């Protein structure tokens, strides 16, 4: 009797795990299958062919290769600049005691709750003033600043965790703060940098509202906007094959990153939130 109960428990648990896997993976599977012709005729759930016609058509009919380059450029620039600014800022916030520190941290956190649309008209003005309208610079500028709050927040949490002895010894030896950061903290901090950089990268790669507002021409667009603008011959019917092919192309690198750095990402998310 007891073993029976145990067995049903195990079976139910396995069923729950299976349902969970199906729930998370099935939609992406359908996207991949559709990029190979599923959803037409008899093939509802399975690919209809295994050639790359939908993939080729995406790259042929719009500057999709350009769009990918734009997204990569904007994302890497955002990560590099925001990490540089965030590392120095969070060193000051985590390691130096000064008046107004808590207030400053709260302000930084406050910025992360701005709805994007709330700064849209002001930002539009600023970007036109700086002559950045319809250029990737507008996106690098806005993404960098909007990724700063959580970068600073996560890095500050990590830096608090570094033992003091190292730094004290360096101070006694007369090291400058910049030397402390580059020589002593960097080697310990790089896992946190990978985490923060990944989150900033994913944020920049996926952003949509600024990208659709500040960029006008097709060649300068980033991939989320490019995908949103793929249209077919008729106004009412999207070419689903190519749309899904494009979706798969921009998502596969992200999924690869997530699977490789799974642990790091989870660490970053929890450092940013659980300890709050």
């Amino acid at each position: 009797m007891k073993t029976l109960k145990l067995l049903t428990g195990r079976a139910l648990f396995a069923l729950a795990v299976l349902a969970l896997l199906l729930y998370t993976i099935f939609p992406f599977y359908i996207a991949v299958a559709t990029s190979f012709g599923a959803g037409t005729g008899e093939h509802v759930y399975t690919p209809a062919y295994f050639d790359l016609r939908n993939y080729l058509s995406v790259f042929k009919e719009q500057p999709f290769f350009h769009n990918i380059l734009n997204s990569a450029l904007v994302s890497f620039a955002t990560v590099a600049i925001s990490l540089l600014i965030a590392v120095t800022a969070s060193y000051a916030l985590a390691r130096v005691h000064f008046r107004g520190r808590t207030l400053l941290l709260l302000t930084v956190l406050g910025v992360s709750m701005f709805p994007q649309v709330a700064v849209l008209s002001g930002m539009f003005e600023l970007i036109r003033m700086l002559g950045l309208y319809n250029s990737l610079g507008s996106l690098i500028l806005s993404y960098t600043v909007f990724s700063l709050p959580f970068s600073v927040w996560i890095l500050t949490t990590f830096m608090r965790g570094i033992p003091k002895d190292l730094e004290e010894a360096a101070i006694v030896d007369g090291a400058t703060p910049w030397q402390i950061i580059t020589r002593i903290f960097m080697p310990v901090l790089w896992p946190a940098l990978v985490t923060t950089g990944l989150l900033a990268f994913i944020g920049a790669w996926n952003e949509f509202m600024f990208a659709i507002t500040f960029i006008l021409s097709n060649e300068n667009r980033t991939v989320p906007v490019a995908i949103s603008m793929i249209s077919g011959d008729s106004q009412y019917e999207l070419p689903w094959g190519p749309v899904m092919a494009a979706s798969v192309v921009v998502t596969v690198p992200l999924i690869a990153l997530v699977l490789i750095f799974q642990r790091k990402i989870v660490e970053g998310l929890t450092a940013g939130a659980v300890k709050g």
Partner: protein
Amino acid sequence: MDTSSIGAQGTKTAAKAPALPRLDASAGRAKAEQSGLSRQRIRTAWLFLTPMMIGLAFVAGWPLLRTIYLGFTDATLSNIDSYSFVGFENYLVYDNGHWYGLLADSLWWKSVWNTLYITLFSVSIETVLGVLVALILHAKFPGRGLVRAAILIPWAIPTVVSAKMWGWMLHDQFGVINDLFMTLHIISEPIAWTVNPDTVLGTIVAVDVWKTTPFMALLTLAALQMLPKDCYEAARVDGIHPIRVFFKVTLPLIKPALVVAVVFRLLDALRIFDLVYILTSNSEDTIVMSVYARQALIDFQQIGYGSAASTLLFLMVFGLTLLYIFATRLKLDGSGDH
């Protein structure tokens, strides 16, 4: 993951020691020299903070102030250099026997209602689901690492892509959802999920839940892994039912982490844009505050009116967040400093 969190917790207490006395270790140094050193450190600290503060002030603070200001003007895209101050006219004005302005626009109120509806249902469903998923992942079973990686997939997929993907799956003629539901006899005929006014809001909630449950699950899982094991041992020895243990022991212990995770999700849900914009474009049935404001700003080029709508959205996010923080007595100094 759990060990690193616990490690960081441990040093939290160590970080409480004040900054100055620790230099006393190098005995014999004059006090004057010490305070000089710390003053220099503080100067460097401000120097290090300057780029961040300039960035936040010019690219976040200034645009926000401009948006609030523009909300009180009649600016449009064509008169962007020569607009005039109109007071509260964008918000509410009485003219010729009629009320005009945002607060008199039924579409605005519809967008407010839709936003609140989506936020409320999406955040509560994904919190429950997230905790369930976290409990599953907290158990030890073969392939756990793989499953944990798999649930990150919906989180990593760009919102635009997940909106397109679900838009296709929910297609009234060729979508797999209709096919699946009809095979399982859940529905008798195809439903146009993203068009039908009765189903469209629920559909948006469902897609949002799919995308954001991983976030909740992972944050909850991290909290679960930090719990002390001994009270569970005690409960098991006493033969208390697992469900009772969950509600009496686990839930109260992970509540602080849940509260923070919910704040993050609330902020995100209130400003929802991409999903609604892609899945249902300009449908009035699903209009949310961000879509309404952006439509006024960009599509209708009414900078003043759109800015007023943006300002109201900002005030609402701000107000609801403060309310939530006070209601849950959440400590946001978060820096581990106090």
